[in-house]
């Protein structure tokens, strides 16, 4: 499969980007000497005006000799030259930055919200524009953060039945075991009492684990970037959904090669991506089925395929599934943010998601992320 051409974004820093980075870019931009386009325009016009005036003076002077005719020609050539230079300079002053801003907008639309840094030794009107764009990027990043969190909470919200079930079961076990212990306290042998207490102990732990895994997932924290083991991401996500899968008659299978390099990224956002993919897969298989996760390492990246045996996605719907707020689920079951947020998370990691679907047979999400360590055979 051909890779998309957009180069992985260099992400040495935490994402979303800390405020200091924007402030730093701003300071750097504004520290340069100010030479505005307007100032340059004024100087150019003045120069042309002076040349014109000199030409007029030499050619219109009464009693001008052949020497002054030569001078006029020189002045004309100079004037032409001045026009050429000014045109060239303006081309560089205007067209260059416009092209540069074009590349910025492309980068931003890919979800890379790093601020724009200085590109030249001086500053002008385009620097003001860069400062304004940086301010906008800061706002965009903050909104994106809120949207990611909202989408995360919604995804968890759709799991309430599973979570209630999963919590009430250990609670019920604790309740009835305690009741048995209290009712029959005199009648039970020490050994039996010990066994009942053990049940209570482990069921408490089980309930605690469920709450902990949920809290781990929903906590809003500054994502820490580093090497992430995708096996662990998939396993911890599966644990959150374990009950949903058992009750939904979904068989889960994960195939990981023994030596899978870690990817470069943040644990929680990646968990969110897989949770979204898994939840969608479960929703696509209301009668049960098989959910397969297969990982493969290729030079410089790790690719994962998440395949379900569900209803599939109709071809007319397929182009829209990553659009924000696009959903085919009934109201209350989804906001249409899951996949769009997943895509933006994956792109922030410098990766890509592709989808293949056959109605009636199932859907495969193919996801690639850059690995944390560059391959050793790199030239």
């Amino acid at each position, binding site marked *: 499969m051909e890779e998309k051409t957009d180069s992985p974004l260099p992400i040495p820093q935490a994402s979303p980007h800390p405020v200091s980075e924007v402030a730093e870019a701003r300071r750097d931009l504004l520290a340069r000497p100010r030479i505005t386009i307007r100032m340059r325009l004024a100087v150019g016009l003045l120069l042309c005006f002076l040349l014109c005036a000199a030409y007029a003076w030499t050619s219109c002077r009464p009693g001008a000799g052949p020497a002054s005719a030569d001078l006029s020609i020189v002045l004309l050539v100079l004037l032409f030259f001045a026009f050429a230079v000014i045109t060239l300079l303006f081309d560089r002053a205007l067209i260059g930055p416009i092209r540069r801003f074009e590349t910025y907008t492309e980068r931003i639309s890919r979800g890379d919200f790093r601020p724009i840094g200085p590109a030249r030794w001086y500053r002008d009107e385009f620097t003001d524009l860069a400062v304004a764009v940086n301010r906008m990027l800061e706002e965009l990043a903050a909104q994106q953060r809120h949207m990611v969190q909202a989408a995360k909470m919604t995804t968890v919200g759709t799991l309430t039945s*599973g979570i209630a079930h999963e919590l*009430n*079961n250990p*609670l*019920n*076990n604790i*309740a*009835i075991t305690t009741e*048995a212990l209290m*009712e029959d306290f005199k009648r039970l042998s020490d050994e039996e009492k010990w066994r009942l207490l053990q049940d209570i102990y482990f069921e408490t732990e089980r309930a605690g684990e469920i709450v902990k895994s949920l809290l781990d997932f929903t906590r809003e924290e500054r994502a820490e970037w580093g090497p992430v083991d995708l096996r662990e991401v998939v396993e911890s996500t599966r644990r959150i959904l374990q009950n949903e899968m058992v009750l939904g008659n979904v068989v889960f299978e994960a195939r990981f090669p023994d030596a899978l390099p870690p990817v470069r990224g943040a644990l929680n956002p990646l968990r969110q991506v897989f949770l979204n993919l898994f939840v969608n897969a479960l929703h696509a298989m209301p009668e049960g089925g098989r959910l397969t996760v297969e990982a493969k390492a290729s030079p410089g990246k790790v690719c994962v395929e998440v395949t379900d045996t569900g209803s599939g996605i109709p071809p007319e719907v397929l182009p829209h599934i990553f659009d924000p707020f696009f959903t085919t689920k009934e109201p209350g079951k989804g906001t249409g943010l899951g996949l769009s947020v997943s895509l933006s998370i994956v792109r922030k990691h410098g990766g890509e998601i592709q989808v293949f679907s056959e109605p009636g047979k199932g859907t495969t999400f193919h996801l690639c992320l850059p690995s944390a360590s560059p391959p050793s055979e790199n030239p």
Partner: protein
Amino acid sequence: MADRKRVMVLDDEPIVGERLKPVLEREGFEVEVFTESEGALQRLAETAFSVIVTDLKMKGPSGMDILRFVKEKAPQTAVIVITGYATIETHREAEAHGALHFVAKPFKMQDLVRLVAKAAK
């Protein structure tokens, strides 16, 4: 011993059956415990029970499937549904299919035993 009434307890949580069995036996019932609905369905096909206590959400056939099966085969059997996720919809559905009681987890064992005893009369 032939007049001892049969009670089935079906829950994929083994502890539920383990705790309920001795208490119900003390009440004079003959108790059979199942943790998988497949096995329970097989047993229901061959034997009649007075009361069935079943979980709702389970791997394989659900409590609702058990309820439908029992009500078709032996309508006089009392079915008590216990569930960790009680909603108005599931409650209505269970009642529509003929469940006698709908009990949300966590429940009190004494309450449940009382319901079973009343249902067996």
